Each structure stands twice: as C-alpha cells, then as structure tokens.
C-alpha cells in the first residue's frame, strides 16, 4: 500500500527532493534578444524521489491517495496512474516555468491580462 509507505518514503526521499536541482544553463535560440530568457535545467530525480515529494506534499495538505486502488486500469483513478501523471507533470512543468528568466523590473503578475490591457488604455 502506498499509504503505508508514505512516512518511510518521506524520510528516505525528502532530503533528496529538497536538494538543489543540478543546472545546466542553455539559452533557447528563439529567445535570444527577446524579453525573456529560458534557462534549461537538468534534473535527474528518480521516480522514488518524486513519489516521496508528491506524497509528502499531499499528506501535508491532508489529501489521501490511499483510498484509491493501487493499480487498477479499469478504475476511474488508481494510485499508479495518478503518481505517474504527477511525476510527468513535475518533470516538465515546474522546471520549464522556473527556467524562464524574467526581468525583475518586468511586468507584475497579472491574473486577468485582457482586462489589464483595457485598464491600461488611455
């Protein structure tokens, strides 16, 4: 059961997950001279480390995946596929977003950009 191993995995993997990602900077060619820069980061977190990170985060929030079947392709959701999806997400999304370097004096975060564009009109 994944739920039973949560604590163990937290202990085993928490430090690894918190370790600084190894970086290898590379500038995307299409971003040269643009307003943004993309920093590519390489990371080699294992499935086990990512599972630990995922389950620790969910446990912190009080979200329990153990109520799902462990591995049942016929079920609407199971732990295996949820974790697989989460690992894929973590390997792609946060690194790509954080690799985008923005000017500190660049735009402030905007939740509703189209509205902001109108408010900016003279």
């Amino acid at each position, binding site marked *: 059961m994944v739920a039973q191993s949560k604590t163990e995995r937290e202990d085993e993997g928490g430090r690894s997950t918190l370790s600084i990602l190894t970086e290898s900077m590379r500038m*995307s060619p*299409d*971003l040269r*001279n*643009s*307003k*943004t820069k*993309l920093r590519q980061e390489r990371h080699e977190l294992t499935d086990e480390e990512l599972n630990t*990170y*995922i389950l620790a*985060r*969910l446990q912190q*929030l*009080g*979200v*329990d*995946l153990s*109520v*799902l079947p462990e591995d049942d392709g016929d079920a*609407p*959701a*199971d732990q295996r*596929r*949820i974790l*697989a*999806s*989460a690992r894929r*997400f*973590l390997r*792609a*999304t*946060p690194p*790509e*977003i*954080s690799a*985008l370097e*923005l000017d500190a004096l*660049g*735009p*402030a*975060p*905007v*939740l*509703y*950009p*189209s*509205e*902001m*564009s*109108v*408010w900016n*009109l003279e």
Partner: protein
Amino acid sequence: MSEVDRRVFVERMASLSATAMISPALLGSQISNTRLPVTQTNGGYTRANIKLPQIQVRQVTDPTELTIVEAAILIRRGEISPVELTQAYLSRIDDWEEVYQAFNTILYESALESARNVHPQRDHPLAGIPLAIKDNFFTAGVRTTANSFIFEDFTPNFDATAWARLRDAGGILLGKTQMGPLATTAATTPTGTRTTVNAWAPFAENVSPGGSSSGSATAVASRMAPCGTGTQTGGSITNPSNAQGLTGIKPTMGRVSLHGVLPLTYTRDHVGPLARDARDAALMLQIMAGPDPADLRTLGLPSVPDYLAAVDISRQKRPLRKPLRIGVLPDYLDEPEHETGYFAAREEEEEQRDREREQRAQRTHERNVATTAARGEMLRTLEELGAEIVEVQAPRDWTTLTSSSFNNVRLPERSEIFLEYLRDDVRQFGVSLSPWINGLLLPATEYVRGQRARFILLESILEEIFTQCDAVVQTAPYPFDMVGLPLVAFPIGFETNSAGVPRPIGAMLGGTPYSEDSLLTIAAAYQQATDWHLRRPANPDHLRPDAPSGPRSPGRIDLLDVMEFGQ
C-alpha cells in the same frame, strides 16, 4: 483620476463589498448557494431594449430548423406558439436523445409550463425560446451536477447571472446538458464513460463531439435545442462548435459574468453561446454580457457594444470594408497536425494492426487536406467580402509561452477551489482527478512566474500580431483562452468520409480585448456568403451502421488523457 479610472475604482470597491458578503459561506467545503445582487443592465443594453433584428424568415417545414431570431419573430407574429416550438424540440429529444445523450436533465413539464405562460407581446427578445444550459450553470430548483460525483445531488436556489439574464429575456429552460466532469473533458460520466456523441457521426466512437460543452453542442447541432450555453477554460466553446458545425463565441474575460457558474479556473473560465449562426450568437451574447456586481471580473470594462448591429450587414456586397485586416499565421495553410484528443490518445495506446493504423492515418490525412482547402477557400471568401488578408508572424516567444507547461499554470486554481473536496475523498473526482492533484504540486514561485509570463504573452500578441491586423486566424483555442482574448468559431466546410457521411470543418478567429462585435461581423459576413452554417446532420436512423442495430457501445476516457487533453 480619469473617468474610466474612477469608474473602475468605484465599481471594484462595490464588487469587493459584495464579494465579502459570501466569504463565510465559501469557507469549508461548501460551494456558496447564496445569491448575490445581479445587475439588470449590461452597460446600456437592458433586456427590454434589445430589439430583434428584422430579417426575412426562411420557409421551413420543421420548426426545429429555425434559428432563435427566426423563431422569436414567428412567435411574435403568432405564426408559431411557444408551446408548439417547445413541443417540437421535446419530440426530437424523445426520438433521438437515447442516441445523442446530450442532456442529463430534461425539463419536459416545466418547459411546457413556461411555454404556456409566455406572453409574446412583451418585449422580451427570447420570449418562448427553449434553451439548453450546460450543467455547470446554477439553475434555481434544478439539479446542477457538472456531471460530477461532488455535485450529483446539488440543487442551487438561485440562477447563475448569465442564465438569469437569458431567463429574464424570455428564455425557457429546456434542459441541462451533458459535460465533462467538472468541465474537464468531452462529456463523460464521472467515471469516464463517454456519453454525448457528435451529432454528425453518432455511431463513430473516434469522432469527438468537442470539449466539455459537447452536450450543448450536440443538442444544438442535432436540433434538440435551438441554442445553448457553454463554458470555456481550454477550448470548450470553440472546439465543440467547430466539431459540430456551430457558431460559438468565447468572449473576452469579464464580458459575461461567471457568478453562479461552477468554477474550474478563476482566471480562464468564460461563458458564451453555442449557436446556429452569428446572429443567434450575437443575440445570446447581447443578453448575457455586461457588468455584474457579483463578479468583479465584469466591472470597469468598456461598455457592451451593439452586437446585433454588428451582425446586421444588410446584404452589403462587401461588408468587410478595408481597412479590416485578417491576419494569417505562416503555418495556417499547412497541413494540420494530427488531431489531438482522447480518442487519438487511446488509439495510440492501444495495440492496433498496421493495416488499421494505415487506414486511420489515411483518413486523418484526407481530413487535413480538406481542412487546409477549406481554410484557403474561407480566406478567399473573406477577401471577396472586402477584408484584407495579411500574413503575420507569431510573436518571438510564442512557442515557449504557449507550451503545455505554461498552460498548466491554470491547475492550482482548480485545486484551491476544490481543496476541501480533495481532502474529503479524492474518489469524488472520478476520472478527472489527475489535474487536480497536479495542481497541488505546482509551487507558488512557478505559479507567479507563470502569471507574469501570461501578461508578457498577451503584450506580445497585442504588439506583434494586432499591430498588423484586426483579427487573426487560429488553429486552436489556445493560447487565446489562456490570456482571455475573444474567439469566434464557425463552420467553413465539410469533409466527407468514405461512407459518404459529412463532417464539419471549422475555423476560429481571435481578436483584441472586447472586440466580439468585430469578430461577429466577420462571421456574419462570411455566413451571408456561404451556407455551411445552415446544414444539419442527418437523423441517426440514416447514419446507423448496417450491422448492429442495438445501442452503441460507449467508449471510455482514461485518467491520463484527462490531464493530457482536458481543459
């Protein structure tokens, strides 16, 4: 402080006060069931002063063929009664709903009762018009499930602002339509069993009905309803419109109130119509649009223009007079990529014989060739109508800022909305659980950076695309729905498969903030010169495969597909 700034300030403060009223109710795990004050004006246009356009009504033998404008005119003339019109739609529902599965609630009795009580002499533009409302709109006293376990027993005690405005304009609630669970995918049960089919190919499991508003789309395309409402976070108005030969408008963020619509993503949810043509879409949008103190996103915006005037092109020979420039991105006339969607994904995951794969690839190629040809023909038609077609370049950072990772910035918003439900029992999310879990895992640093990137993306679109043109063709709803820009979708042709069954091909045009009127003008002009929007699918008995005559076997979507292709 300028006049606009002052108005923004005052209205936002008023809105924040109103919003504060519901804060206690939102604490905990309950979606608020408290109605907030709903303004009855929309920037000058009230429900009472929207005048129906005076058009020549087509002669039809089946009243379900009428557009809502046509039906409303005939009702006022006394040539058809609201009861007759409503009954005509209910009869089609009786005949074909078993195949289409477009509704999850059908209001036979109350719809007819409402129709009996219509007074057409009252100046209500939708008096006696039955409507299909997506099941994430609150409808007072009528179950609102969003096709989810979470809300399977939820009955709101007030109407969503958008539906309240349609109702106040005389609209009749015909039914609530099927949708993806919590608006994530094409319509399925909470466990992922496909429900709604494409009205043009009801027995073809590999033909998607579109996104999460596919119930409304199928209801309208199949003539089980004259018009419907949808919501779009990632394509769910424009995709089903294109998939089923309809005209859909995804308005600019804030143009239509989201109050009383079950939220998916605060910053990207939009309400809009799925209609038979641009004129119907304009009428629906005219009614739904405008400020609402219960939704601060609607406040401080430019006044709602006259959309009906925008589509009244009065048979002008060249209604799109220059300098209207329609931008075309360089790859628009290239052969499109293979269609994405859960059906395609499932096909890839399954082991197929090589021959079947080749056949599928051939069909895709044929459709892509037809799509490219239809796009080229559309551009030629628009040019003949007076538009200037200009090639525009994608902004420099387009590829990066529109990647799926930046699209995923939306996910924490849904996770936050539904956090208490996630804590309660993740099984309530059924097949759509994955994006909610992933949203919990995106750190705040990346969320903030993603929001900054979104504004940069919008700025680049405005500065690098819309300085070259007034509207731009799009091959997908993304990224315009990501940054809140308006989109119109409309049919531009058909592709016919080897069995001779036609399937719609659609186009999308994007515009600048609050330029829905311009987009509607383009769509209306195009529809004046073409008749794709008038075509209707054959009834299912003409499309049923030769072999089995029993009910079709429903397909399923997979949890991983929801993350990959859901909105």
